[in-house]
């Protein structure tokens, strides 16, 4: 290779590589490193090896937060993906006002999570909130409640903004998958007299199973990394009722200054996310074959 070319490659890659290594790769190492210490930012770091993890695996709040993360995930998988699939399928079968509908479904995706959280706050508000007012108007007044602090509904109530905010993204991904199908197959199915429901369950869903798998992955990763809604709506309360892994890391690290313990939580979140990504890569490679 010519010397001039080598110099050129260095000037094109080194600045970004160095910045990336310093601000992205090294924090990955640092978060693992900090997780071996007991450290509150004031007193000096004390090396405690795996004690943070031992404590973590015996910590009922951590299990509570994992369970709540699964609750969130259940909403995404059992509610968001099916609705998104149905909407995508209906949009795919030529409809009037296609662009308008797609816009309405998609806008929540690009709305900031803070704005979304505050909008849902107005849905759940006790006295004049949309949900309670509607219930009173249709004569179901006895079902009104303080949705965000009632232990029975709090976790579901904080899950809904995420469902609403991501549904549009799932919808356009599934729609792109559908638009990639060859029309001949569907025409053949129509000739055989398959009805719409059979067509959807027997032909379309199997054919876009790769894309549905991708939506599952996105749902899993976003369940493990999203917590801004929760910070704004409940801060994990009441009594950790809505604590998820991310919000637990945030409150241990930034509110209680337990940097070591917070890092241990972060490491486990990262571990789960990476394991899932690897599993999915394998899965999608098998699908491609």
């Amino acid at each position, binding site marked *: 290779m010519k010397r001039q070319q*080598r110099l050129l490659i260095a000037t*094109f890659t080194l600045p970004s590589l160095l910045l990336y290594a310093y601000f992205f790769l*090294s924090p990955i190492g*640092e978060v693992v490193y*900090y997780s071996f210490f007991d450290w509150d930012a004031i007193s000096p770091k004390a090396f405690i090896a795996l004690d943070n993890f031992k404590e973590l695996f015996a910590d009922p709040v951590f299990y509570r937060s994992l369970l709540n993360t699964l609750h969130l995930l259940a909403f995404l998988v059992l509610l968001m993906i099916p609705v998104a699939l149905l909407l995508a399928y209906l949009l795919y079968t030529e409809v009037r006002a296609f662009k308008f509908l797609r816009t309405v479904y998609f806008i929540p995706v690009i709305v900031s999570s*803070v704005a979304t959280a*505050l*909008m849902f706050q*107005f849905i759940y508000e006790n006295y004049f909130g949309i949900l309670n007012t509607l219930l009173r108007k249709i004569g179901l007044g006895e079902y009104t409640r303080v949705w965000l602090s009632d232990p029975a509904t709090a976790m579901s109530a904080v899950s809904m903004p995420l469902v609403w905010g991501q549904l549009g993204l799932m919808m356009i991904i599934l729609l792109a998958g559908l638009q990639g199908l060859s029309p001949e197959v569907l025409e053949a199915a129509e000739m055989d007299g398959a009805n719409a429901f059979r067509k959807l369950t027997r032909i379309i869903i199997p054919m876009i199973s790769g894309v549905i798998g991708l939506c599952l992955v996105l749902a899993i990763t976003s369940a493990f*990394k999203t917590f801004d809604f929760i910070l704004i709506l409940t801060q994990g309360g009441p009594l950790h009722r809505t604590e998820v892994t991310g919000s637990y890391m945030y409150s241990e690290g930034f509110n209680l200054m337990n940097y070591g313990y917070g890092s241990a939580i972060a490491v486990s979140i990262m571990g789960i996310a990476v394991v899932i990504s690897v599993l999915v890569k394998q899965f999608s490679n098998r699908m491609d074959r």
Partner: protein
Amino acid sequence: MMTIRRFVIGTCKYGFLWLYATISLFLFAWIFASSFKSNREIFRSPFSLPENWTLDNYVRAWESANMSTYFWNSIFVASISVLFTLLFGSMLAYAIARFRFRGNALLSGLFVIGMAIPLQSLMLPTFLKMNELGLRNNLLSLILIYGVFGLPRAVFILVGFMKSIPAELEEAAIVDGCSYWRMYGKIIIPLSVPGMATLAILDFIGAWNEYVYASVLLATDKLRTLPIGLANFKGEYSSEYGLICAGIVITIIPVVIIYVFFQEQIVKGLSSGSVKG
């Protein structure tokens, strides 16, 4: 018989499509209408249109609640971090896509890994690092973070894009004695504009909306970006509902405008980017 069936199917289809659309639109409309109401009016008749469409809440949000400062901070942070990602990302992608050198695969692998790491799990070390660098409570810290965190996706999209540019153009340019820098500036960048535009739009929206990093890195009121400022309304103006609604509308409008103008790029960028990733 056939027509009845078609009618029923059509009704179900449009019924479902419009049901979901109506719920979403209703929520936006409720917030929009409430942003013109006083607290008393919201309490008394939460579902009615405002009695008179005064801009009081907007004026107060923009001026006394400092939304204007937050707004320009957000514009500043989002634009500079997008330029950062585009410049460094395109240089990297050019080297990876166009030159064979030892470590090429390793280099692109390092950036692809970045797409699998949940960024939120790096908050603690990033916070400590910015503290050490003295960049805490400085908008530069957000610009650096958003800019660097955008690189994996930039490399992913732009390498694919640049690889599809035919090599003949560059070969001809070399024969003409054109330098690699000129080639990058005069051939590669202009031909990559569609990919860069998609990237710029997605990254801008991402930076505009980012909350958790900004919430731990910024402390002073006059440095806040919109999401932090808005989240703080909940504490400072917790019972001024009309004002909060106005704040929500101010935050949402710019991204809706961006969407209206660039919807094809956004939809394509997000669906193909994630389908392949």
